[in-house]
């Protein structure tokens, strides 16, 4: 019911959304008598509100009947979801005893902890856990961004360490000024709701920009912004881009001045592209046969891109989440470099710049001490991430199953998962289940009984960000907040017995007998950090304004040659056939040429979904009613299988089976099917998933540079009736 004469006096609390999209949108939270009654968006400086459907539904998340409000102890088999309520004291004692026992018996390396990276805040995040576990003698941490390790790898080998040069990741302001925009596997209308990227694309188009979508799907961004949709087979992006490079070189459209001045290895790259290295010229006809994009279309795209000075190649992380996704990002970087389109990053202050590091003790992680770098370490990722004592995030389950005998650094016995839903969100769920069942103890800190939490021995209830204080550093990814810091004000008291991540770490520090762990409240710590940051802020802002966003200001790059490397010295040193010195097209496993395609002839991709941020928000009624978790299949592929719209289908391969409705559509390439990732795994007694969890079907084999291959999987589909 609408209140026609509002005479209430609500408390208004300003905070910033803290979800795994990375959007960091402003929240204006209306609180009445200690309860959130609504959440309103706040216009930014340009008048645009930055809050998506998920933010508007956050009240349902806070007050969801499914919220975990008390510590839970597992009573049934792992995965059964049978738990009983226990006290905090019992829960913490059990966890501390298990951690001490496992440390004593197997050593610190047997303790795994994973905290996913994209909830952008400081006090209740990875630093709190890392500090605690390092103070406990160390632990095994994973390496690898699930979202964008291929990008990080490509950037590192091409531009070197700490480079402010960038490709992809252009700012909304730059798009606004562009005359030709290529959205390559990029769907900002769905994946970047927190920034004004979509608005910039719409405005660019209104100003006459031509926008082209290169994507296996006719995405909502393609629908809203593009003049042209160029469908492309998954995993073939590098081939089609290399053919663009071929046309540019053959027709002498490259920016030779830029190449001569700022790049190294062009001749070697050119030899590969022209076929002098391997006898295969990377012509548009060659790429057409691989990627399904017509040769003439590729040639036109190459000419238009090279000749339009303001053209932007918007290459997204999505195609990089593929076997050899590193090469896609490397070719994209090369394409930008040879056309002189690489830019310098605007100065982005770091957490350290502002003195925003929380006052946690940070002893070194002893598990990583003395361990040499991984064979595929890229210097830009830093010594800790590069340590061979770490395990790639996608390989954790394999490492648990095989341990030292399988070549991993340790045998793993204990796992603590916080701020993530590992089982649901990494490749090959059925293998992950096998691995989870092998562990001696699993601790999950969560808000809901997720697929991951169901496998825990103890689940600790964590409050939402609206129930605690925190602080967020400046961000330049996805978010429009590029300066200073933002305080996340607490809106309400934690529900039930739920606690913040920091409180959980503090309580465990006491039980584990760790000295020096901060015992202040989150509010006190925030005030302390703000006081320090305010002092350093002013001088840093002045310094920042003096820096120009021009490549001519870039000092020598920290690559072996000191330049942008079109032939990478770092990659060459790895001496691995699948990490070549020059960026190449390497055919993926599970491509349509794989013998496995006889059995499983459809390429599965697992894109983002508007109503979720990965697996977050899948359980909220306001959001569930907006989009059906279904598999998108082209009408031709559906017809060949007797599948009609909304038919229930089984999607399967050797890794597992999912049963969901079919979305029969023209908006996906024939031969390609898409299951939005993040659906909550809901198996029946035979392990068949009815939640539409895409990772039942994906693989956990990593790409050589460490990329999660969530878009490399073959499947078959059959109708199972309405």
């Amino acid at each position: 019911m609408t209140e026609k004469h509002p005479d209430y006096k609500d408390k208004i609390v300003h905070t910033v959304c803290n979800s795994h999209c990375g959007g960091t949108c402003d929240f204006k939270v209306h609180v009445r008598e200690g309860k959130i009654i609504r959440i309103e968006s706040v216009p930014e400086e340009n008048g645009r509100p930055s809050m998506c459907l998920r933010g508007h539904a956050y009240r349902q998340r806070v007050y969801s009947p499914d919220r975990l409000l008390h510590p839970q102890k597992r009573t049934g088999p792992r995965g059964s979801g049978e738990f009983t309520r226990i006290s905090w004291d019992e829960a913490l004692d059990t966890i501390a005893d298990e951690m001490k026992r496992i440390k004593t018996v197997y050593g610190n390396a047997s303790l795994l902890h994973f905290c996913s990276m994209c909830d952008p805040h400081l006090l209740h995040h990875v630093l709190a856990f890392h500090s605690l576990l390092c103070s406990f003698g160390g632990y095994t941490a994973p390496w690898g961004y699930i979202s964008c390790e291929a990008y990080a790898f490509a950037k590192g080998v091409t531009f070197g360490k700490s480079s402010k040069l960038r490709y992809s990741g252009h700012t909304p302001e730059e798009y606004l000024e562009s005359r030709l925009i290529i959205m390559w596997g990029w769907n900002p209308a769905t994946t970047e709701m927190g920034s004004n990227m979509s608005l910039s694309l719409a405005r660019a188009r209104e100003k006459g920009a031509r926008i082209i979508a290169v994507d296996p799907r006719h995405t909502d961004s393609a629908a809203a912004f593009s003049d042209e949709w160029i469908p492309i087979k998954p995993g073939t992006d590098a081939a089609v881009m290399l053919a663009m490079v071929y046309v540019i070189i053959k027709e002498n459209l490259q920016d030779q001045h830029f190449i001569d001045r700022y790049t190294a290895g062009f001749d070697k790259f050119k030899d590969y592209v022209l076929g002098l290295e391997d006898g295969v010229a990377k012509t548009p006809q060659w790429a057409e046969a691989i990627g399904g994009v017509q040769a003439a279309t590729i040639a036109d795209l190459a000419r238009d891109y090279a000749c339009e000075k303001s053209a932007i190649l918007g290459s997204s992380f999505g195609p990089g989440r593929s076997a050899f996704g590193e090469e896609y990002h490397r070719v994209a970087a090369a394409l930008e470099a040879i056309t002189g389109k690489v830019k310098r990053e605007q100065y982005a202050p770091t957490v350290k710049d502002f003195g925003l590091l929380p006052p946690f003790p940070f002893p070194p992680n002893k598990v990583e001490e003395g361990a040499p770098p991984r064979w595929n370490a890229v210097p830009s990722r830093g010594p800790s991430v590069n340590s061979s004592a770490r395990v790639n995030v996608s390989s954790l389950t394999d490492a648990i199953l095989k341990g030292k005998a399988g070549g991993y650094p340790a045998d793993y016995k204990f796992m603590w998962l916080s701020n993530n839903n590992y089982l649901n969100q990494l490749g090959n769920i059925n293998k992950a289940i096998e691995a989870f069942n092998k562990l001696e103890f699993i601790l999950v800190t969560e808000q809901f009984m997720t697929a991951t939490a169901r496998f825990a021995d103890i689940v600790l209830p964590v409050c939402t960000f609206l129930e605690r204080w925190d602080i967020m550093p400046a961000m330049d990814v996805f978010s429009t907040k590029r300066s200073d810091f933002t305080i996340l004000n607490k809106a309400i008291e934690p529900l039930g017995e739920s606690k913040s991540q920091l409180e959980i770490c503090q309580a465990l520090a006491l039980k584990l007998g760790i000295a020096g762990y901060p015992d202040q409240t989150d509010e006190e710590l925030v005030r302390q950090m703000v006081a320090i940051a305010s002092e350093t802020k002013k001088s840093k802002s002045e310094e920042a304004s003096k820096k120009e966003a021009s490549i001519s200001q870039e000092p020598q790059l920290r690559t072996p040659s000191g330049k942008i490397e079109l032939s990478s010295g770092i990659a060459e040193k790895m001496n691995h056939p699948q990490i070549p010195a020059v960026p190449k097209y390497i055919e993926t496993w599970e491509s349509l040429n794989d013998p496995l395609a006889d059995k499983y002839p459809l390429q599965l991709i697992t894109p983002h979904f508007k109503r979720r941020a990965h697996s977050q928000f899948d359980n909220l009624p306001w959001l569930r009613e907006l989009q059906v978790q279904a598999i998108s299949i082209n009408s031709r592929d559906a017809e060949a299988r007797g599948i009609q719209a909304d038919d229930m289908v089984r999607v399967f391969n050797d890794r597992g089976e999912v049963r969901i409705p079919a979305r029969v559509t023209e908006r996906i390439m024939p031969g390609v099917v898409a299951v939005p990732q993040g659906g909550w795994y809901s198996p029946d007694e035979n392990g068949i998933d009815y939640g539409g969890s895409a990772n039942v079907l994906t693989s956990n084999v990593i790409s050589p540079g460490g990329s999660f291959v969530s878009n490399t999987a073959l499947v078959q589909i059959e109708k199972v009736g309405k």
Partner: protein
Amino acid sequence: MMQYGMYIDQNRCTGCFACVVACKDWHDVPAGPANWISIKTTEKGRYPNLFVAFLPTTCYHCITPACVLACPVEAVTKRAEDGIVTVDQDACLGKTDCGQCLEACSYDAPQFEAGEDAKMQKCDLCIDRWAEGKKPVCVMACPMQALDAGPLDELKEKRGGARETEGFTYDETLAPSILYKPKKNPYNP
């Protein structure tokens, strides 16, 4: 007579649902069949030549509202001061016993929750927010700034706009208070 209405730039709409959920949160409408605003998606063409358009659909506070005329108990009324069509739920007979408003409306604007005794509810153009000097929550929630609302003649002057767009046909009899910047279908100009 003053008439409030809405303006929608269909070219801007990405179908993001921010308006839909913002409306449900602001007006405390539970999940279910009652939606004061929803997104209609039009998909035309065959692979790979496609035209797809999104369109927020809601109550258009018609100049001659069929729902007001159809209601046997005068539960639905058109306000003289701003032309906004509102419903008195206490007076409403409900969908099962009556449902005349829904039958009369060409645009399916009257909304009902599930259940036998569901009373009519629908968009009231955020009367409560206008009273605080704020535009409707859908307008303020749109990250694409595709929506606007206000006195229709002012909107017309400021924004221009057409009476029809992809997915919406203007009903001369009802005279809905809505203006569009239409999205053009290149295959059906």
